[in-house]
């Protein structure tokens, strides 16, 4: 255990100042000047993106700071070699020789920063040329090179190659690439942001404009309504005469119909009353196959009785009043003139009653001579009474006709005004929804709305339509499975715009509704770069877009890591 202190590489990197140790186990340090902190400058003379490292200064400070293995320079002063060592938690004091002697004396592991003796110690690797690292001390001398400078494997026999320089170089290159990417991206982002802001302004202006239009349209609507009402008053008055004529005609028609119906009923009664005793009985009905409701080939007493309104027999009046409505459809059906409303409808008379009721209700104010059994679904809604029923194609006198025409014109004008208000309202609604969406602090994500991006893996095509939905489609078919519907931004607290959640997708068999997390990173173009399903029915899209290339991402933090402490 002679090498209690770091044996640190003596070479000095072109860019970085390095730790240098001397023979007496003391560490000489070339401290990196705080004032010479590396930064990025853009050479504005060149149009192309060029990042260069600014000049920095190394001050050479000779210090005699002894540093136990695994301790960072900033904590070196906590280990004065000329004094007894006290655990940081104060739990024990011991001769300094017990520091890093491969036996854990402190509960807080502070006596063994450079060995694996304590279960939860921390080992610091300087990794000169690259990022320094704190690793769990249980990785010390386990045969695996964890630190790029190899300092964690000083007694395991593992042959670690110091590759910090390479790592540092590639990290810096990566950082530079990243910085370039971010820079290029920021320009696009600015454009996107501008588009977004413009779009928002447009929408806002449009919104205001529409608000105003809406007021105008509403006024117009009121006006047209007034005119329509006035015209209809005149029209109504003029049509009163014709309406009376119409009612009379209708009444007459109804009476005729009733008489015809009664005659028909009487005739049927006579026909059914086989024994001419003035009563129709169950037995008599049983001989008529028309009454075989269940089509089983015979008319059961129950079936017959149903037609007789649960009586054993009925006389003519009773037949007309309470049986005819049940009997008639079956006779008609038998003669092919009637199709029942639904095949399983056994309460024919009730259904018919209901139909009549509906019909009357809906055609109120109309003279209606249609067959009661006619389908009435196509009856239109009328806000105003139609002046004339087609079947009563009455010819009005010239003056009346004029009033009717004027009223028609007024009605059309009102309907048009009304439609315009509705149109404006729905347009407003759409704009409102757009304006309520969060397209980023500078509207930079707004241009993504309305676009869709695809990602093809070997089996599926994945689609992201930002602010709308995510979905998946097998390459072998066209059926699309929705993986999520736009929900909300869901990045970490530091930047919620780093992720989006699309939830309430299609329900998984035997499982939950599908959801998608879209992680968003800076990229030179809008693109899905990978899709995975880490949990069943929980998808993760990695999406890059220039919209995510913002100022905090210019790579400073990465380069800071690279030369921490130096």
């Amino acid at each position: 255990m002679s090498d209690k202190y770091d044996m640190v590489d003596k070479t000095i990197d072109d860019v970085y100042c390095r730790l240098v140790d001397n023979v007496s186990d003391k560490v000489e340090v070339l401290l990196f000047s705080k004032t010479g902190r590396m930064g990025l400058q853009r050479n504005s003379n060149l149009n192309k993106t060029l990042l260069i490292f600014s000049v920095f200064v190394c001050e050479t400070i000779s210090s005699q700071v002894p540093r136990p293995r695994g301790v960072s320079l900033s904590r070196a002063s906590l280990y004065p070699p000329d004094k007894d060592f006290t655990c940081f938690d104060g739990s024990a004091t011991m001769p300094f020789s017990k520091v890093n002697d491969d036996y854990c004396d402190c509960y807080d592991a502070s006596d063994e920063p450079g060995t694996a003796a304590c279960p939860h110690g921390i080992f610091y690797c300087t990794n000169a040329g690259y990022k320094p690292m704190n690793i769990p001390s249980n990785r010390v001398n386990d045969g695996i090179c964890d630190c790029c400078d190899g300092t964690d494997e000083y007694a395991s026999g593992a042959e670690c190659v110091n590759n910090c320089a390479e790592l540092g170089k590639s990290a810096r290159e990566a950082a530079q690439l990243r910085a370039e990417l971010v820079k290029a991206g920021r320009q696009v982002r600015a454009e996107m942001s501008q588009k977004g802001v413009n779009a928002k302004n447009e929408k806002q202006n449009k919104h205001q404009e529409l608000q105003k239009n809406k007021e105008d349209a509403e006024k117009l609507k009121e006006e047209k309504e007034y005119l329509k009402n006035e015209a209809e008053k005149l029209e109504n008055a003029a049509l009163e005469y014709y309406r009376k004529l119409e009612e009379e005609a209708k009444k007459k028609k109804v009476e005729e119909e009733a008489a015809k119906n009664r005659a028909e009923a009487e005739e049927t009664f006579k026909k059914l009353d086989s024994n001419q005793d003035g009563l129709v009985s169950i037995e008599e009905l049983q001989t008529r196959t028309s009454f075989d409701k269940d089509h089983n080939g015979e008319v059961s007493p129950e079936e017959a009785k149903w037609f007789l309104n649960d009586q054993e027999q009925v006389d003519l009046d009773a037949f007309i009043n309470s049986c005819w409505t049940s009997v008639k459809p079956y006779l008609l059906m038998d003669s092919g003139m009637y199709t029942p409303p639904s095949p399983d409808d056994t309460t024919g008379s009730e259904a018919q009653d209901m139909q009549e009721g509906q019909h009357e209700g809906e055609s109120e104010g109309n003279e209606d001579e249609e067959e009661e059994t006619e389908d009435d679904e196509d009856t239109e809604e009328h806000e105003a009474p139609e002046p004339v029923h087609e079947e009563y194609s009455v010819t009005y006198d010239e003056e009346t006709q004029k009033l009717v025409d004027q009223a028609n014109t007024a009605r059309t004008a009102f309907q048009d005004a009304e439609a315009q208000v509705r149109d404006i309202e729905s347009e407003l609604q759409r704009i409102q929804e757009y304006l309520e969406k969060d397209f980023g602090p500078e509207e930079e994500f707004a241009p993504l709305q309305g676009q869709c991006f695809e990602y093809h893996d070997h089996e599926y095509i994945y689609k992201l339509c930002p602010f709308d939905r995510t979905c998946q489609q097998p390459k072998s078919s066209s059926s699309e499975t929705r993986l999520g519907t736009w929900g909300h931004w869901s990045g970490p607290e530091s930047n919620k715009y780093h992720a989006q959640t699309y939830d309430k997708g299609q329900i998984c068999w035997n499982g939950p509704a599908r959801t998608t997390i879209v992680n968003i990173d800076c990229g030179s173009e809008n693109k899905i770069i990978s899709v995975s399903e880490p949990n069943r029915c929980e998808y993760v899209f990695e999406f890059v877009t220039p919209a995510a290339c913002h100022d905090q991402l210019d790579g400073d933090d990465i380069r800071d890591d690279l030369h921490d402490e130096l």
Partner: protein
Amino acid sequence: MAFLRVIPILYVASCSLAVVKENFKTCEQSSFCRRLRGFKAEVSPYQLDLTDLLVTDNALETKLINTETNSHFKVSLSAVHGDIFRIQVDEVMGLYPRYNPQYALNGEPQPAKLRVVDKSKEHITVQYSDNKATLHAKPFKVEFVKDDNLVAVLNSRGLFHFEHYRTRPTESENEVEHQKIEDPGAWEENFKSHHDSKPKGPSGIAVDITFPGAMRAYGLPEHADKLPLRTTNGGEPYRLYNLDVFEYEVDSPMAIYGAVPVLYAHSPKHTVGFFWHNAAETWIDITNSKDENVMSSLVNLVSGSKESSVSAHFISESGIMDMFVLMGPKPRDAVKQYASLTGVAPLPQYFTLAYHQCRWNYNDQDDVTSVVANFDIHDMPVDIMWLDIEYTDGKKYFTWDPVKFPNPDEMVNNLTSTGRKLVVIIDPHIKREAGYFLHEDAVANDYYVKNKDGTVYEGWCWPGSSSYLDFYDPKVVDYYKGLYAFDKFKGTTDDVYIWNDMNEPSVFNGPEITMPKDCIHHGNWEHRDIHNEYALSHTIGTFKGLVERSPTRRPFILTRGHFAGSQRYTAMWTGDNAADWSHLAISYAMCASEALGGISFCGADIGGFFGNPDMELLQRWYQAAVWLPFMRAHAHIDTRRREPYLFSEDVKNRVRIALRLRYAHLPLWYTLFYEHETTGEPVIRPLFYEFPEEAEVLDIDNEILVGNAVLARMIAEPGVSTISVYLPGGPTEQWYDIEDFKMYQGGTHNIPVSLDKIVAFYRGGNIIARKDRPRRSSSLMHNDPFTLYVALDNKQTASGTLFVDDHASFEYRAKKYLYLHLEYADNTLTSNLIDKTDYPTKEWVERVVIFKPPPGVKAATLTSKTLGTVDLEVAYTREHKALVIRKPGVNIREPFSIKLY
């Protein structure tokens, strides 16, 4: 009565996941079980003809006659080395040969000398050591006496029955009256939509055996049931028939994946084992006199007293009747006797005892890499990553999905770079796909199991239409083992091991989800004859493949289907359990039962395979699994991801502590496995095994002993703040809580428990060698130092062992190992090598912790050959519960002593 009230609540609680019982037969639905369970005779019709007797040094052979059918059988009774009697019954001139399992026994049992001590026309008595067996002629009955105590009686209840093979009567001819078998299923039977043609007709065998004085019976794995066997009268018998039971339920005698037909009848006085060496479908009725007033009369018949007894009725569908009576007298003896017949597990590689991380499925090779990386980031150890069926190219075993696993070599290298390993699944069903080399080879060379008409059998399994390799054909095994060669199974290396699943075999569209019984194996055996042995035959092929592939590495195979003898080749796990407290609770009982059945290398999937465990259940499961030999987390494809690093800091901490505790005890597990191989003693033990005289431990199965030094009590009760633990041994026994070193005497203790608490004790009198330095994986701990935990008994002494070698190769069989005997007495700890062996190691002694140490110790000196005499620092822990000796620093290869002053 209180217990009856509890049942409906449990039932409701476990309703969410439930087995479809209708898919599996009851005894009543199985013709031979129905027939033989119903076989009753006032007096057994079976009689010996002792005039026809052949006696040799090791055996006697005589004739048995069914006096009702006049069918003849030969009976042999032989002595097997190690206090075992073997009785075999077979037909004389039978119509067809009968099957005797080929793979269960570890070679032919070693005969022992037997002498006739008494003989008449009515009986003959033979003696072997202090064991006697008496054959009674009329009716047939065999009594077994140990040290002058009657311990077992075969056919005491007259249930012995042997359906000799016969020709099927044509419809016109009446069957010979006295040979008639009335059961409608005797000659063919149907279950659900499946037809069993039974070309050989009825062939059932049955016998009862009664154990006078016994208080409990144990064994007969595999069942998801409590450790002590329950009385089955009026209910379903225990069933042994390897089946893939979807969502199996606990507290049930239903058959599941494995079958080990060995039973132990136990009382504080003596323990006897009974091994029913048969691979066909088997049902066992158990009657314990404590549950049955009726039994007392039967017992009186046998023993003439009113003492307790246990009786078992074994019923099998076919095969020779081959039985071993393991004469005990203690559980340890009987279990070792069983091990002497069926063999032991060879020492596994060290890493196999560490933590395994599995899931159906890790999506792709990046997923595998990232899971391990996350374990490292969160500083939790893991040794082995597992790949379930989705790694294959379309469920074609020995292939890789080219999209998800395009570079298995790269993935494996990534794992091994931090000492990790990979296990991949290989099932016995083969996809019937043109162009799949394995299928084409199998068709071309006739490797598949056949239908009864000689055509290749096709069933449905993961790949869809599949056929099944017939491992009964030596040429198939030769071919199959070659598939594991690195040039055949591309992407595998010495660090890739094998998981054999679905080998009951599971057939999705077969009767009871398995293969039809009238299928034909090599040697013209029906599947009916060999069914329970099929998985074993499969894993033997794999074992041979791995040995040939990696001759310097001990194989590791995990199997689901298993049989007596499987321990020689594989570890097993309790199959597709569920994320339910009841499944955690049953895991110790299931593995303890397997351990008694010779299979110590057992575990239950942490977290439960089906369903999503809540955080409390998951943590408790990790804590409990520290103390089972095989420690693996696994999960169904429909469940949420549950790698332990995904959870809150609290949960992560608790799991990390549990995993580190496991890794700290790996030297103990490893030593116990070494000792298992050399002695046959199980690695984990139910309490009655170590404390046979203690009536209080008879029914305890939520506690388990790891070796004889550690007692673990699982917490399978949600939301508890106090648990009750029974510590055996009485007031003179000293137990030490492994976390706070608190000492408890034998007896029942209520212990407060938080979610952090892992309830485990070291037994006074033991020295446990641990490696307390955590690492990412076990292979990175090889050179780390030991801490010796000395748990003193009330005589202030303790002893222990420690086995050390290269953790991987067969070199230990060439004396390249260290086997330490550690002893503490007279305030001195000494270490000596037990065998004259050597293994150069860097491992050294970092610390000694003495529980309940002598007072007033001021210093210690270490003496060894190379270090001479060195002074060591000592310090008492708080409240003087323990004394810590600081850094002895001696290499464990070197004998040493440490004396306290």
